[in-house]
């Protein structure tokens, strides 16, 4: 009897709620600066969840999520920039010889539209790319290479069209959002709380999605795409849907990132950040929803921590961390704990048959 109460207390739902509450309570005992950093990490975690849906569950590795993150971030930044300049032309446009606001900037004068577009544009771009590639049965490493190449294309486009995007400097120096000072401590705390809530919503929505039949189909596609096709499912439709969803989530994360960091530039959406995003998922553990969150927070916390303590040689520490995880924890941090519990189960004479998971 006591055992069941104990179990109930420790049920995942309770623990997740506790983590969530702890994150919500963080502003009470963390300094503004650390809170802001944690908020940034959590924005990355949102993106990592979306990426994991695609990679961990559906088996499609994308090295191009920087694009969607970037588009979302730029959408938000464009609105903030227009708000900061107060109706006049942003400074970089004047340098580039523009005399009036270009057409594609016009919708971003309105915050609601900017926020909606920040999710919709990345989703539509993902839908377009996904439809063309998955329908033509481009998958596996070919899709990965394609996604990587797309990053290069988009970054070159953003750097090259300086009059529209601010070039390599990106967009920065924002002032207000809905009349609130974006840089003030209280607004930043609000942004942090919004990020936590969004993370919670995304997490539970994705959990709902993968717990049911739909999730089983995704895993089926990952482990045996042709079998699923012969069973009458259309894998490319499922993949396109997940890719689109993942793109939208990345855009959402990008918007939250810009609000808290106050700058977006092409360096944040390029090849290296795009690969880093995959590393967060790999390090935390693919195919679990909590893994990417742990990975994103841990890797970025390590990055900040190492670079603060050892500014000259921190890159080596970070590299070492990646090597150690890849060599000793191929399934990431959650994989380590799964292994432990599996071993215990086997000792307890487990009744269930273990099925080896394979990832493409």
């Amino acid at each position: 009897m006591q055992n069941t109460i104990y179990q109930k207390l420790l049920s995942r739902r309770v623990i997740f709620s506790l983590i969530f509450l702890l994150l919500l309570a963080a502003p009470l005992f963390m300094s503004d600066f650390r809170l802001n950093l944690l908020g940034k990490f959590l924005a990355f975690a949102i993106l990592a969840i979306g990426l994991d849906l695609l990679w961990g569950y559906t088996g499609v590795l994308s090295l191009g999520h920087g694009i969607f993150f970037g588009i979302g971030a730029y959408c938000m930044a464009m609105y903030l920039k227009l708000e900061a300049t107060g109706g006049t032309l942003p400074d970089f446009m004047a340098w580039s010889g523009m005399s009036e606001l270009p057409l594609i900037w016009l919708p971003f004068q309105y915050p609601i539209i900017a926020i909606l577009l920040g999710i919709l544009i990345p989703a539509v771009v993902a839908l377009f790319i996904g439809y063309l590639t998955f329908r033509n049965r481009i998958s596996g490493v070919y899709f990965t290479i394609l996604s990587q190449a797309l990053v290069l294309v988009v970054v070159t486009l953003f750097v090259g069209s300086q009059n529209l995007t601010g070039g390599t400097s990106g967009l920065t120096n924002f002032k207000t959002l809905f009349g609130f000072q974006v840089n003030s401590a209280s607004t930043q705390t609000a942004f942090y709380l919004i990020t936590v809530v969004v993370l919670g919503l995304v997490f539970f929505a994705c959990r709902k999605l993968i717990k049911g039949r739909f999730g089983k189909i995704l895993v089926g596609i990952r482990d045996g795409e042709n079998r699923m096709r012969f069973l009458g499912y259309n894998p490319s439709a499922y993949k396109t849907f997940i890719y689109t969803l993942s793109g939208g989530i990345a855009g959402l994360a990008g918007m939250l990132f810009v609000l808290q960091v106050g700058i977006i530039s092409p360096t944040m959406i390029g090849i290296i950040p795009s690969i880093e995003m995959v590393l967060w998922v790999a390090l935390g553990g693919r195919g679990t929803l909590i893994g990417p969150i742990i990975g994103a927070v841990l890797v970025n916390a390590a990055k900040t921590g190492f670079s603060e303590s050892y500014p000259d040689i921190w890159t080596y520490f970070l590299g070492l961390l990646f090597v150690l995880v890849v060599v000793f924890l191929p399934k990431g941090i959650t994989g380590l704990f799964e292994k432990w519990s599996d071993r215990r189960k086997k000792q307890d004479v487990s009744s269930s048959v273990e099925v080896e998971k394979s990832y493409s």
Partner: protein
Amino acid sequence: MRKRNFFYLLILGLLAIFMVACSAADNAVNATDPEEAEETETTEESESNEETNGDTIKVGVLHSLSGTMAISETSVQQAELLAIEEINENGGVLGKQLEPVVEDGASDWPTFAEKANKLLQQDEVATIFGGWTSASRKAMLPVVEEHNGLLFYPVQYEGMEDSPNIFYTGAAPNQQIVPAVDWLLENRGDSFFLLGSDYVFPRTANAAIRAQLDNEGAELVGEEYTPLGHTDYNTVIAKIRNENPDVIFNTLNGDSNVAFFKQLQDAGITSDDITVLSVSVAEEEIKGIGADVIEGHLTSWNYYQTTDTPENEEFVANYQAKYGEDEVTADPIEAGYFGVYLWAKAVEEAGTTDVDEVREAAKGISFDAPNGTVTIDGDNQHVYKTVRIGEVQSGGMISELWHSEEPVKPDPYLDEYDWASDLSESLAE
């Protein structure tokens, strides 16, 4: 199943410890490294954060130590640390030793913003010395303004900015570009070709040069921009050959210079045919390009390693003694160096490190820097500097051809020039 739950509980616990540790570490502002943090944490838990702590004054040093900009920024960081060390040997500032807090901007602009935030909010540094690219300065600007911090920015730039929280110790356009164009018009001819990397500085600089050439009745035969890191200049050189200008005004940045000068030489165009004047090529970059390739071409700066002042002799000797005989000094390195001294003098004058009082005290402060006497202009927080046009020698040094009579008053918005009135109006916010 239960074991997995145990795992999540463990995560929860770790998270709680992490967050508490973070907030505790923030309280212990005295600590510089983790071990020390723990010690102070236990002994003086709730000590309030003062602007200066104990016997030291913290100053931030924020440059890219990794990534593409590391090659340039590391030497500026070295010069700043040298200045801090010298000041400490001479008794420090206000009787306190300076304690540099070094951070890595990692050639990534959001990281510059994050680290500036960290230095101001957590370490509560009295000032930050840092930045190189305009993008990094623009990323740090909202941060230092929000927290009323100070930033000493050591590199020549495009002007059109005067934040009350930034001191600009590099050249404003009228201390480098405008006099260079004047000198070229007088000495090398009046048909110009503008070549630059595609970002803020070259775009803005060239907008000013266009207006100036127009005003002088000179001819602009071409204007080309290439992406940062571009290395194929054959098309551009073909255009140059067609137009045959007297002067190429070069605002390329970074590695592109290596490719451009090599290909220019390969095309058989020497400094006798067409003069290239560069504003982003100093002694450090010449090492990379190769002195024989760029020999005879011109540069415009406020300082060269060969600048003949007693202060410079001492500076070069100290710098090379500390970092190696092969190291060269250059304009941004020198600007980083004297920026530290200017700040230290302003703090002595103010008697405190309080930002508002230091800013007030800094007005009109002078220092005998290696390039000559520099003085802070109270109106725009730039410095009066001597302009120097130089020619690259075969050994990689730059010998001076001309210098301004006296230090030139900084004019970031080019207000003094009638031809620039439209320009500054459209560019200033």
